[in-house]
């Protein structure tokens, strides 16, 4: 069970499938069934979005207006909580990268047999219900001997755990796409030191892969609710919940905006991604 956002494994799978190109294995003639299926699919996906959008425009009685959007974005609490969550997200991303990238690299290069174990660990957040995990963490670390509850360390740790599968999957996919051993040993044999190997050979090739993991972690932290609210740190998730129970229309407006922003970001990532994959392919 994931966090409140029910971060489905779509995102996780999205990362897996990212580096596959679009080779078509034989186009058939115009297939009417394909069109029918596609259109049915689009209706199913877009009707709910449209209804939400329509609702978000209905704040003023009997007329369509962007009042909900105006109210939502002009609330100073919105920006404050948004800012806090952005900060948590950045810290989580950095800590997560520092934790995962060296580990994944190390496993790929030195201990490939450990990969299944590490992969299992990163799948654990899928298997353990988030509610239970968060409560477990609070009970374990809320009192001496290890008192972590007064600082955001526990919050960040929780976020890292939640985003672990995605970040690891992203980095792992990236490392698999580049031949780590060959690159490392080639660089070593050319006399490169470790700093150069890491920062000028490995990381540039991982940039795109890491980008998708970063993006998903960001989305997770911004949308996460349970942990932030239980630990009583200011964050965007609890804020949205609160607004939802007080001012209808505004959360719907916000979710429409966030949907659009996410779509645009993924679109941009796809474009960047296509370019970088070609670069790596060319290097060989």
């Amino acid at each position, binding site marked *: 069970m994931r966090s409140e*956002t029910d971060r489905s494994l779509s995102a996780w799978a999205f990362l897996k499938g990212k580096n596959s190109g679009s080779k078509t294995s034989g186009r058939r003639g115009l*297939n009417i069934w394909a069109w029918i299926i596609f259109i049915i699919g689009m209706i199913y996906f877009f009707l709910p979005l449209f209804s939400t959008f329509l609702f978000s425009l209905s704040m003023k009685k009997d007329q369509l207006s962007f009042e909900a959007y105006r109210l939502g974005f002009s609330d100073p609490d919105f920006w404050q909580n948004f800012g806090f969550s952005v900060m948590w997200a950045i810290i989580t991303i950095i800590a997560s990268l520092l934790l995962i990238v060296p580990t994944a690299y190390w496993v790929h290069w030195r201990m490939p047999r450990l990969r299944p174990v590490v992969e299992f660990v990163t799948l654990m957040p899928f298997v*353990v*219900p988030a509610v239970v995990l968060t409560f477990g963490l609070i009970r374990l670390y809320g009192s001496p001997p290890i008192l972590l509850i007064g600082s955001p360390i526990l919050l960040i740790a929780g976020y890292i755990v939640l985003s672990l599968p995605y970040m690891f999957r992203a980095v792992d996919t990236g490392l698999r796409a580049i031949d780590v051993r060959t690159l490392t040993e080639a660089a070593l044999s050319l006399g490169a030191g470790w700093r150069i190997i890491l920062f000028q050979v490995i990381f540039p090739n991982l940039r795109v892969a890491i980008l998708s993991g970063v993006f998903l972690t960001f989305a997770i932290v911004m949308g996460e609710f349970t942990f932030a609210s239980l630990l009583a740190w200011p964050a965007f998730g609890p804020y949205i919940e609160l607004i939802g129970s007080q001012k209808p229309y505004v959360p*719907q407006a916000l979710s429409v905006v966030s949907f659009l922003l996410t779509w645009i970001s*993924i679109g941009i990532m796809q474009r960047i991604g296509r370019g970088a994959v070609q670069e790596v392919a060319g290097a060989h």
Partner: protein
Amino acid sequence: MTVVAKKTNNDGNVPLERPKTRKFSWDWLGVAPFFLFATLFLFLPSISIFIRSFQTRAGEFTFENIIALFTVSDIINAYKTSLTISLITAVGGALFGFMLAYAVVLGGLPGFLRAFLLTFSGVASNFAGVPLAFAFVATIGNAGLVTRTIESIFDINLRQMGWSIYNITGLSIVYMYFQFPLMVLIMAPALDGLRREWKEASENLGGTSWHYWRYVALPILLPTLLGTAILLFGNAFGAYATAYAFSGSFINLVTILIGAQIQGDVLYNPGLGNALALGMIVIMSLSMLGYTVLQRRAARWMR
């Protein structure tokens, strides 16, 4: 230490090999931070779940929580409902998701639609929980857009006719919103992996399209199909936010029950909540295991 024939380099000198044990320990250092983190923040809480499921509210050891899993009708029904809805959305999601993936990859649709569907599928994963539940309420709920439209076109009152989406069927429809994209995202690359040569070879041997699918493509795709279906199953089973936002505790699901026991204002038996979680972990682990095993089998063909 006995001297055994060793590899030599060109000089003919026997290179000094580092004793195996020492090299082993330094490699472990590289993964130590990760495992330390995992132990502190994943294993220990999970173990505490395990331990607490054997505790009463007062903290004494008991089997009553585990026994309750199999005897309390409420809990059995929760598992039944959760399993039912997971099965429905896994099968339904796999079928239609596969068809969607097929449509954009092999169906002769314009190429840009593939990218469109794939990026959209990536976004659809962000749209779950409260916004998703509300989106469907606003569409096919009692006062939803579609409901109102139908009512005005046919001049009927659907509410009076007993129309309601707040049941397993309705929730399944909502779940499909993240099941379909998941299937699409995994099947699209898999369909890519069907090499053109195989189709041509089949045709060369005189086979029709049906033969191709029956004897070549489906057998190759089957592990991925099944594996992803299992993944969808686990995905639906573990869903909490969407279900709760949709109908609160009124539809009896395991995840909802866990929430009520651990967080509730009125029910409050963390031992039972943890026991429920344990049961869920078992089911989720099995589904993850099934998925991983089948993925490896499928990977053989996708090289």
